[in-house]
C-alpha cells in the first residue's frame, strides 16, 4: 500500500513538472529584459510610457494563456516587427549582427599578428647589419673625441 502511494506521488510530480517548467519559461520580468518598447526606444523593463504599459499587459495576457517565452516573443514580433527584440534574431540578415563582430575581431587579430611579424623581421634585419648607428657622425664625432681627450678618463 505504502509503495503504491509513493508511486502515485512520483507520477503526480512527473505530471506537474512540465507545467511548472512552462510557467518558469514565461515570466514578465524575463521577457521585459529581452524586448523593447518601440515608441520609447528603450528596453521594456525600463519603460513606463502608455505604449509600454499596453505591451506589458499584452505579455501578461499571453502568459496567463500559458504561452511560452518563444511564443510570446513571436507574438510581439507579429505586432511590432523585428525591432521589438532587444537582441537580433540569429537567422537571416540579423545573423550578421553576431557574425560581423566575430569576423572583424579575427581579421584584426590576423592583421595585428602580420604587423608584429613584419616589425620583428625588420628589427632582425637591422640587427644583422650591426643595428642602427646612433652615435655622433662627422664633425660631431671629432668634437666629441676632442672634448673627451680633455678629460683623463
Amino acid at each position, binding site marked *: 500500500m505504502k509503495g503504491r502511494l509513493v508511486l502515485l506521488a512520483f507520477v503526480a510530480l512527473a505530471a506537474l513538472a512540465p507545467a511548472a517548467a512552462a510557467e518558469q519559461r514565461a515570466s514578465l520580468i524575463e521577457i521585459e529584459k529581452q524586448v523593447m518598447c*518601440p*515608441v520609447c526606444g528603450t528596453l521594456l523593463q525600463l519603460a513606463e*510610457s*502608455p*505604449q509600454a*504599459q*499596453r*505591451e506589458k499587459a*499584452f505579455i501578461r495576457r499571453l502568459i496567463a494563456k500559458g504561452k511560452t517565452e518563444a511564443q510570446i516573443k513571436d507574438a510581439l514580433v*507579429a*505586432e*511590432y*516587427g*523585428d*525591432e*521589438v527584440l532587444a537582441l537580433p534574431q540569429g537567422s537571416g540578415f540579423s545573423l550578421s549582427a553576431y557574425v560581423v563582430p566575430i569576423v572583424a575581431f579575427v581579421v584584426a587579430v590576423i592583421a595585428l599578428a602580420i604587423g608584429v611579424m613584419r616589425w620583428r623581421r625588420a628589427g632582425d634585419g637591422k640587427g644583422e647589419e650591426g643595428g642602427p648607428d646612433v652615435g655622433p657622425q662627422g664633425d660631431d664625432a671629432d668634437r666629441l673625441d676632442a672634448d673627451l681627450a680633455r678629460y683623463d678618463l
Partner: protein
Amino acid sequence: MRSSIAVLAVLAVVGLLVFGLVSKGSSGVAVGDPAPDGPLPRLEGGGDGSLADYRGQWVLVNFWASWCVPCKDEAPALEKFQRQHGGPRFTVLGIDSRDLSSDGREFVRRYGLSYPQLRDGDGGAAHDYGTTGVPENYLVDPTGKVQWLLRGPVDEQYLHDEVAPFLPEGKS
C-alpha cells in the same frame, strides 16, 4: 598599395557613419512632397491597403494609436468630418501606428470610426512620413502630394477652418 587600403578602410568607415545618419534621421515629408504610399495591412478585414488605393481623391491621413490620449480626443472630430465630407472625392484614412492590433480594433469600435484603417505595427510608415509622434495629420491631394500637414491633434474647428477649404464644393 598599403595607402590605398587605408584610404578604402577610412572611406568604408565614413560610408557606414553616413548610412547610419541617413537611415536614422528623417526630416519627414513637407508640403508639396509626394506622400509615401507603401502597402500596409488593413486593421480589420485582412489583406493590404495603401494610400495609392485612393488616388484621385483627397485623403486626410491620420496617424494614431490607441494608447495616445490626444488621439482619443480627436477621433470624434475626425469621424464627424468624415460623415460630413466623406465620399468619392474625399476620405479620412487612419493609420494605427506602433500599437497592438487588438487595442486598435477596440479603439475603432469604441469611437465608431467608419473610415478605412491601416495598421503600421512596426512604425515603418510613420518613419517614412517622418512623424515625431501621434497624432499627426496629412492632407494628400488627388495626385498623391501632401498639401497640408499638422504634427498634432485636430479638432472640429481646425478641420473646418484648415482642411475643408481644400476640398471640392459640397459633399466630396
